[in-house]
């Protein structure tokens, strides 16, 4: 049974220059207890997708539509996220679906103590008195490995290190053991040494609370560590889908292959870093055919004419490319 079921999600932003096509028909599903990652460069629409799942995009300027946009809560009820009112969403957020954000230093309110910010979750969702909430807060802080939680609870965010702040955000998101945890690049803003700890903590929390995980990242190392299944996104479209081992060892889309090639290998000495030529096209100015065509090493005339569909290649592999792997690597 799927926790999150998205079919053909499209998101637009209305700006001064016209509509920006942020997400163009994306199918994503997250199973019970499954850990799914969405990978892509910045600006490919992955964060927008995650915010849309929480219904946190302001509309206007954002407009969205989908064939299916369902979330199944723990009691088995199917919620259509498209038609939910803001009030109904309040009962889903934090209780059933929660989110961890990118930069812990800007995502905590600077003028409230850590404790106050964590208390709120219990106060507004469990109707607790502040004192009672604080007991739970302290307990929660212990669970995410914050030393001396009583003292930390009375401190302000600027008094904590980045790693601790991210732990606070994790505590905040997982305190009501939601069914789905969305993590939007949770380690990008942290030191490398802290990253591993935070990833491990997220993994532990998911296992203990039986949460499904939707991880948004651009880091393939994080993907290998954290995910069971991977979606590769490019310019608002899914370009490849499959299990983590399949994708990382046998990429079928030129973009995925290029992404993997850009990761420097520690064991072999390379002359140069591999890079993907050009930049991600501006969302107002995407290529006519396949969106990756202008950067693709295997691009043909066909690719520049018409956007390929997402081919189903069996075994849960889907690839948005006209060519099968053998054909491609031949060229």
């Amino acid at each position, binding site marked *: 049974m799927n926790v999150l079921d998205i079919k053909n999600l*499209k998101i*637009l932003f209305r700006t001064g220059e016209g509509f920006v096509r942020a997400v163009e028909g994306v199918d994503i599903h997250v199973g019970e207890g499954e850990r799914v990652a969405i990978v892509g460069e910045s600006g490919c629409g992955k964060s927008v997708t995650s915010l849309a799942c929480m219904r946190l995009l302001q509309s206007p300027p954002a407009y969205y539509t989908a064939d299916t946009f369902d979330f199944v809560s723990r009691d088995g009820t199917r919620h259509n996220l498209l038609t939910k009112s803001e009030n109904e969403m309040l009962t889903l957020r934090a209780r059933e679906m929660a989110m961890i954000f990118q930069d812990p230093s800007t995502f905590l309110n600077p003028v409230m103590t850590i404790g106050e910010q964590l208390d709120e979750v219990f106060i507004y969702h469990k109707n607790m008195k502040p004192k009672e909430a604080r007991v739970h807060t302290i307990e929660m802080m212990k669970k995410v490995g914050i030393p001396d939680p009583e003292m930390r609870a009375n401190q302000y965010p600027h008094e904590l290190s980045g790693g601790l702040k991210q732990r606070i955000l994790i505590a905040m998101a997982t305190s009501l053991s939601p069914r789905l945890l969305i993590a939007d690049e949770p380690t990008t803003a942290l030191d490398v040494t802290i990253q591993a700890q935070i990833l491990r903590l997220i993994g532990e929390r998911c296992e203990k609370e039986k949460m499904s995980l939707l991880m948004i990242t651009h880091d393939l190392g994080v993907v290998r560590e954290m995910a069971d299944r991977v979606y590769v996104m490019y310019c608002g479209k899914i370009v490849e889908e499959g299990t983590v081992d399949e994708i990382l060892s046998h990429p079928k889309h030129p973009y995925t292959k290029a992404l993997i090639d850009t990761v420097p290998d520690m064991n072999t000495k390379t002359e140069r870093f591999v890079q993907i030529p050009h930049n991600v096209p501006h969302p107002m100015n995407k290529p006519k055919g396949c969106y990756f065509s202008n950067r693709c090493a295997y691009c043909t005339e066909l690719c520049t004419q*018409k956007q390929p569909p997402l081919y189903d290649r069996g075994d849960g592999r889907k690839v948005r490319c006209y060519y099968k792997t053998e054909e491609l690597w031949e060229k």
Partner: protein
Amino acid sequence: MMKKLTNQIFSAVRGIGKFILKILKNPKGRLGVILVGIVVLAAIFAPVLTPYELDAYDVANGLAKPSREHLLGTDKNGIDILTQILYGARISLIIGITTGLCVTLLGATLGIVSAYFGKVSAAVILNIINVLLVIPTTPLMMIMSNLSSSYLMMIAIFTLIGWCGTARMVRAQVLSIMNMNYIRAAELAGGSKSYIMFRHIMPAVSHLLIMNTALSCAGFMIAEAGLSFIGLGDPSVMSWGKILVAAQESAFTSGLWAWVLAPGAAIFITVFGFMQIGYALEEILNPRMKRKKAARVKNVSPEAAAEAVFAEMADISEEEADMLKAEFEKGSHVK
């Protein structure tokens, strides 16, 4: 040599011309230029525009209501109000523009110096700014204007007291520019301090300064009107503030509305004009400021428009794609 110089002058003139054209193309700038232009022309041609003199006492005709001879009426001494306003524009413009320029010049110099030339100068300048920010400006001006009542004195006092806001702004801007990588690169490349200052920092703060000049001109015109209203202006020249003092004495009881409204309108038009020019400059020189309004197709709600864009996003089916692929491989797509 001579030719090079003339070429440079020509290109400078062309640059300024283009800049003025840009201001005129901006709707705010156009409005501002028109308003300020009217006031400037009125000030210059005051003697031509009015048949009366400022010292044409005609007490018998005093406190006259607006009429064909006196469009805005006359004051207690029978002097035409319109004439007073036209001549008053001169002092208002002179004080506003010179003070605006002086304040910007002094503020910019001290701001850059405090940000760029060592800790000692920074400490001295920042302390002076701290003191000036605490001293209540209007009372200090009132006390200082006892020194001399000439309007040159007023400009000097305004400049001495008013530069600190500009200096703080420029200092902040310079500090943020100095953190930019291109300044570091210039330093590493061995550029001298003064070279970097004139070549890199000055151009980067110049747009701030141009804008600041226009806005402070507006501010000081209001301040000048206020000071001459409380009787601290130059007694030998006519100013809008002074007309209003006389109006409070006599116009209220005799219901001469034009006497009170017209000087205020004059101040408003001039100040508003300068402010519009300032905002226009801000938009022209700092394109990030410009916020375009969301384009709206006529008679179509944004939801419907979004719906149309959603429809364009549909993928083709796998079969269609396969056919297309085969077509391309045969080369038959070429028509």
